[in-house]
């Protein structure tokens, strides 16, 4: 099971809480997934409707770790201030740090990301940075104090899967002792299984479950795929080869020509 900042979690699945058909289905999907970490956010609260209070009570009832995000932040100041507010509300120093740099792909602004990570780490936060598979940026994030890296699989909400398997594999090889999480872009369970087969410690997803036809079943399917992928990685998969190699022994074959 993965460990982040000294905290062992029960599952390699980190599940988002947005876009579900209803709060009840969200809760059921969370339970079906077995996820140990739920991502959450902060948004404006009305003093009349107070909608966030019921949501927070429901999340607390699930007994999972919460990972607040800074989704939608485009500047270092926005992200840092949002993180400060999240730390108080959610009573955790964990933060999924997002500094968005580009609207079409929601690609992280890696320059702002590194700066915000440094500021937050110095302020006592434990930062989970949403980044790319760029090894230089990853190194800067570790220098800034991050002890987890979360490269994207594909653009947020795209469902495209692992767009750059070479880059992710290189990241795993380059940082063998750093917890790595594929965050964003996964669409189906096989994408998550593939990430785990590469040796990633966990995957973080939301839309693929929430926007499926049956979020509860899909949550369970992701959990199974992640378990299978992790087991396969531990079992040391064979090396692929370009040419065929018979699996049935040739020796002893009858001469029938």
């Amino acid at each position, binding site marked *: 099971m993965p460990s982040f900042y000294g905290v062992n979690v029960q599952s390699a699945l980190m599940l*988002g*809480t*947005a*876009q*579900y058909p209803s709060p009840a289905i*969200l809760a059921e999907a969370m339970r079906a997934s077995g996820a140990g970490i739920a*991502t*959450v*956010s*902060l*948004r*404006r*609260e*009305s*003093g*009349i409707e*107070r*909608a*966030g*209070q019921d*949501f*927070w009570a429901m*999340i607390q009832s699930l007994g999972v770790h919460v990972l*607040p*995000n800074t*989704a939608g932040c485009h500047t270092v*100041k926005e992200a840092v*201030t949002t993180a*400060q*507010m*999240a730390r*108080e*509300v*959610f009573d955790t120093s964990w933060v999924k740090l997002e500094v968005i740099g580009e609207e079409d792909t929601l690609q992280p602004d890696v320059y702002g990301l590194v700066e915000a990570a440094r500021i937050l780490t110095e302020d006592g936060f434990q930062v989970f940075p949403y980044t790319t598979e760029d090894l230089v940026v990853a190194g800067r994030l570790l220098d800034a104090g991050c002890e987890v890296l979360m490269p994207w699989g594909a653009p*947020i*909400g795209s469902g495209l899967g692992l767009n750059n398997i070479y880059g992710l594999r290189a990241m795993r090889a380059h940082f063998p002792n750093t917890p790595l999480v594929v965050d964003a872009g996964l669409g189906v369970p096989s994408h998550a299984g593939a990430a785990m087969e590469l040796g990633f410690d966990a995957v973080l997803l*939301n*839309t693929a479950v929430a926007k499926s036809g049956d979020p509860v079943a899909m949550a369970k399917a992701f959990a199974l795929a992640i378990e299978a992928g992790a087991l396969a990685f531990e079992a040391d998969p064979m090396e692929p080869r370009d040419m065929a190699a018979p699996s049935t022994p040739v020796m002893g074959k009858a001469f029938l020509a």
Partner: protein
Amino acid sequence: MKLTVNGEAKIVSADNLSAVLTELGYGDATVATAVNGSFVPAASRTETRLTEGDQLEVLAPMQGG
């Protein structure tokens, strides 16, 4: 006093942040606050004086990915 609260104009009579939150109905709600773009911890709300035209953000837990 006129404030902008979560992007909407509000008229309040209280002048410190804690009292303004009570006046606006937040009561004991779990919220975080920022004034003019800067985070104000819960422990500092009573001593935080608001002035005409201040921008107040009141945020609460919400669904996120």
